[in-house]
């Protein structure tokens, strides 16, 4: 079923041809619909095609089969309506924090005064009001990811794609950033797809949670979860005390464990 609004992924497959003549089926027959304003987290063992999926949505890769539609138009390449937040190292270190955040509007030719306003507002929102003129390499990892979030939001995209955005942060910073992501989601009402390796993060930051399985990369299971909505105005530590939380966590953890063991078993059988 497809709708005119939101993101539609139709029968998507991706095969990488390897130089040695072989090929890797990174994705096979992936179907997915995201309504506008939905927050979806994606989990899965390493190599199951999460990054590949995100790169295809972003338009950096063309799928071998199937197509992606955003608001009823087919994705053919990268564009400003699909913003990206990378794990790290995607900020422009030759620009100040302000210039980084204002990059998107500047490319569009937005008047300076307007850019200034947007940037000031966004940096205040992510808590970097005092760091606007700093160089990005002077900031900590957590602050840099705040800049990356603000930079993405400054462009006002329809969909925000995040590939392990908090993966390089320490546990404490990470928790603060998780709250920030929820806050921004609620405030802006953006459609967000967030890839993570942490089951807890996937539970907390997913209105919908997608578990993918490898070889070939495919959707294994999907959950609808209440925790993201709860986390919007609650302390995340309180959310974790929710009776369903521990149960879901165990369920998903063992699911991923099983997949990992299967992979290991297959590798052993091969060798």
């Amino acid at each position, binding site marked *: 079923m497809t709708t005119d609004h939101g993101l539609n992924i139709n029968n998507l497959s991706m095969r990488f041809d390897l130089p040695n003549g072989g090929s890797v089926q990174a994705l096979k027959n992936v179907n997915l619909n995201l309504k506008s304003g939905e927050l979806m987290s994606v989990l899965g063992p390493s190599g199951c095609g999460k990054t590949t999926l995100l790169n295809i949505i*972003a*338009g*950096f890769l063309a799928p071998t089969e199937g197509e992606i539609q955003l608001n009823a138009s087919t994705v053919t*390449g*990268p*564009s*400003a309506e*699909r*913003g*990206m937040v*990378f794990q790290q*190292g*995607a*900020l*422009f*270190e*030759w620009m100040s924090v302000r210039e980084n955040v204002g*990059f*998107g509007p500047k*490319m*569009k030719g937005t008047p300076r005064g307007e850019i200034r306003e947007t940037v000031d507002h966004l940096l205040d929102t992510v808590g970097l009001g005092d760091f606007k003129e700093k*160089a990005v*390499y002077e900031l900590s990892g957590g602050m840099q990811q705040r800049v990356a979030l603000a*930079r*993405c939001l400054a*462009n006002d*995209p329809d969909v925000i794609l995040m590939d392990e955005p908090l993966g390089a942060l320490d546990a404490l910073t990470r928790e603060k950033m998780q709250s920030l992501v929820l806050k921004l989601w609620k405030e802006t009402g953006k459609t967000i797809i967030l890839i993570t390796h942490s089951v807890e993060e996937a539970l907390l930051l997913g209105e919908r949670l997608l578990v993918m399985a490898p070889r070939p990369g495919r959707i294994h299971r999907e959950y609808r979860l209440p925790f993201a909505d709860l986390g919007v105005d609650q302390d995340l530590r309180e959310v974790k005390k929710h009776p369903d939380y521990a149960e879901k966590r165990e369920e998903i953890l063992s699911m991923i464990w099983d997949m990992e063991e299967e992979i290991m078993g297959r590798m052993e059988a091969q060798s």
Partner: protein
Amino acid sequence: MSIFTQLISELLGILATFVMVLPYLIGYVLLIMLTLGIWRIVRRFMTPKQDFGALKTVTFGDESAVTSNSAASVISIALIFVLWGSFTGSRWLPSVLHMPGAFQGEAGFSYTIELPDGSTQDATVDVVVFGAGETPPKLSVDEGAQSAKNDGVAIQAYRNKLLKWDANDEFSRKDGAKIIAINGQSIALDGEVFVPNLRVAVTPKGTLNIEPNKGVQMEPIWLPAPEAVKDRLVEIATAGFKNFMLVEHLGYSLFRVIVGFFFGALVGIPLGYAMGLSDWFRGWFDPIVEFMRPVPPLALIPLVIIWAGIGEVGKIILLFLAALWIMAIAARAGVSGVRISKVHAAYSLGASKWQIMRYVIVPNSLPEIFTGARVAMGVCWGTVVAAELVAAEKGAGMMIMVASKFQQTDVVILGIILIGAIGFAIDMLMRWAEKIMVPWKGRG
């Protein structure tokens, strides 16, 4: 003899030289250790430095704990000057530090001749050794009453002189007279004896070869004293050298480097960008660049001289070629080194290709380009000096080449010092520019 045996014999000669030099090297290392020991003792009486490094217990093997000790640098440079002054008898050093110099002043000896009839006679030789540049003193010698007459001779320091002792004698070598002793020490043809401050030898033909003691100092023609170099600097700076002022010589060298480098960068950077951004350009220029890169610019000098002559154009073409490949490779590396996530991020933020180029690829490549520019400037400076050694009317290299032909060692050493100082200054300037222009280098 085959090339192989030739090379082996060359190698043996080199090894022999190395073995001869080895004790000096070891002595130098021991001297370094000695100063280290002294420094440690001195430091014990000073307040210990209070930085983090002082609290590290593991320093051996911790690269960050090894910073250049500036005391050692100062001592090392001072030692070079002390050694230099000591072996050249510099006026800047107290004479206790001087190595024994060449003998100057009055000396003498007596010789004994034997006549065919078996009788012997004695006569004396007065020797006056005078310094280079002094006028040889006139000697007045009392020839004495005996038939072997006394002689006198003036010799310049570091030179030797043959003395026909029998020229004024009543019996000459033709008559069968021959020297049998010097200062009472017996001597035969082709023998030698040492008397105070002199070495006296008898040549196979029977004349005397008198050589004043040379000491262990260097003759100015090999190594002038530091003050001589300084005096020469003042002289050349005010009066010029070979028709051109010192600033002209150095200015021309610098001018060639800057212009050659500028055009090299002007062509090389876009070339590198093209190679980094287009597979066709990469394929087109890869073989050319990869071939030209290992060709030392010096090897191009003959060809450039044949094609463009020895004027400015030839030199600038040479430096252009020296800088071109380095800059092209640096720009190519700068473009290929861009993190794909930065480019992806820029596309997702709505940047066009041109905007990606302007705001991402160019700034991202600047650190590499600056590193390349530093290397290129160093290579250009070395190349220009070498090119001027081969052929030039003015320039730092020409200065030392011409000076060496006239044995003006002080100019040669002065030139080397100036060339080194300018090269060092260029590198410092490039580092400084790098710090100002690309503060984000290595921090992405």
